[in-house]
């Protein structure tokens, strides 16, 4: 379920960590790492926000701050899978056409294959590994099992993340609406009718995400 690496504890030393890190990085990162409430004065001293070559990046994934070494060209998808061992998020087309890589960034669904990790450092990232609470499945995960919403399962993490967002957005009120608002997630096995049924079941149960 979670990756085998022991995740770092949640970032309590946010302030200290940030300051020492900025010094370490020669003042290169500044804003990308600054918490949103940073004062104007601090913001100015932390200017010059150029990132070049391999640097340390921090991503907050499923509530846990993780660090990794990466170049600016590394996508969020590759960061999750290759650096943080969160392989639940799948790489399908790698061009934003299939939706297998869908994750939530600050609660909104995005294609992680077209997102640069360096650009989401101070945002909340949720992957399929973050849906269940311990052993208790998310209602949509349970509904996918109830309705057989998959065959090979490769698109399923993306379908789940997109489905969770679809429910939260209020776009799951009819079968047609689900079909339209889930159209960014392809399923080559053709489990579409069962995926629609699973999402509709959760919607009708009154779950709001």
């Amino acid at each position, binding site marked *: 379920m979670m990756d085998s690496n022991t995740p770092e504890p949640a970032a309590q030393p946010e302030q200290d960590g940030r300051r020492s890190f900025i010094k370490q990085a020669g003042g290169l990162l*500044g*804003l*990308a790492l600054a918490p949103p409430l940073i004062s104007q004065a601090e*913001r100015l001293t932390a200017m010059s*926000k*150029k*990132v*070049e*070559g391999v640097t340390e990046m921090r991503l907050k994934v499923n509530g846990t701050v993780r660090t990794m070494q990466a*170049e*600016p*060209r590394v*996508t969020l998808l590759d960061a999750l899978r290759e650096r943080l061992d969160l392989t639940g998020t799948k790489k399908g087309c*790698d*061009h*934003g056409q299939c*939706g297998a890589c*869908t994750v939530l960034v600050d609660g*909104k*669904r*995005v*294609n992680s294959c*077209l*997102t*640069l990790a*360096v*650009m989401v450092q101070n945002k909340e990232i949720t992957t399929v590994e973050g849906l269940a609470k311990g052993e208790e499945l998310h209602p949509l995960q349970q509904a996918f099992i109830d309705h057989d919403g998959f065959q090979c399962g490769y698109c399923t993490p993306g379908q789940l993340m*997109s489905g969770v*967002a*679809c429910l939260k*957005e209020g*776009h799951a009120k009819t079968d047609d609406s689900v*079909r*339209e*608002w889930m*159209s*960014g*997630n392809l399923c080559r096995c053709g489990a579409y009718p069962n995926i629609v049924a699973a999402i509709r079941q959760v919607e009708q149960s009154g779950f709001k995400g």
Partner: protein
Amino acid sequence: MNNFSYTQASSAKEATASRAGTAQSAYIAGGTTLLDLMKANLEEHAQLVDINLLPFKGIEQTADGLRIGAMERMSDVGEHPLVVQNYPAVSESLLLAASPQLRNMASIGGNMLQRTRCGYFRDAAFPCNKRVPGSGCPAIAGDNHNLAILGVSDACIATAYPGDLAVALAAFDAVLTLENAKGKQRRVPVTEFYVLPGRTPQRETVLEPGELIVAVTIPNTAHARRSTYLKVRERTSYAYALASAAVGLDVQGGTIRSARVALGGVGTKPWRSPEAEKVLTGAPATEATFRAAAAAALRGAQPHDDNRYKVELAQNTLVQALLAVSS
């Protein structure tokens, strides 16, 4: 994807200065077009300048109409009550485009700068006058089923802008605000922002190197309030338009007082049709009028082997859209 440096700008001045400092630099907002092109090695940049912190935000009524900041996202604009209420065609053009994920990411400014889906442009193994000027255009005698029939040249027949929003914006006289490195702003109508391919298909817009898109402003008009965007695709959803129509009519007592028509998927740029508008204005709002307008809109079409069907498809799309807004 080649390696690049990443710079986060917090003001327009900082963005333009950063970009001017490095040759082969590009701005990045949502990144949905740019990273796709870079992964396919169709664009290479040594530096990406992140413009998401720029204050080009907000959706607000102004004396000139609805002003939408270039950093607003397609999803937010498409479902914004002022857009839904006063510019249904604009809302529909956004919500029928891409996927919910891409709409959450893509900015309005970036949407304007999408590049063609021509298969020859997107495969670096082929010559392409847009990609390598002077190398030739295999699309003219090749697979051109999804390419343009209006505004084509001997050098290029690509639908340079493959999207939807700019088609609706072109129909309703929207104006882009641009800002250059000196901080000077200028206003360019969307219809003049895109240029025909002619002999220089590598040049697609009048945007100067380093110039930023700040906002788009759409006049508040009766024909924009009574408008729609109809999109015909190879599948029901999540595909580019084979043909589309953004139309708006101001009908009073059965007579069309003013009309706006633009076509997507068929022109080398978002295709405003003054010819169709001329037929519609002052005429009765009937199917016969709409048929005549559609014929006028496509009169100059120059189809090729695989896209001949688009002449009829575009006419029918336009007629259906006009019927929808007039009923």
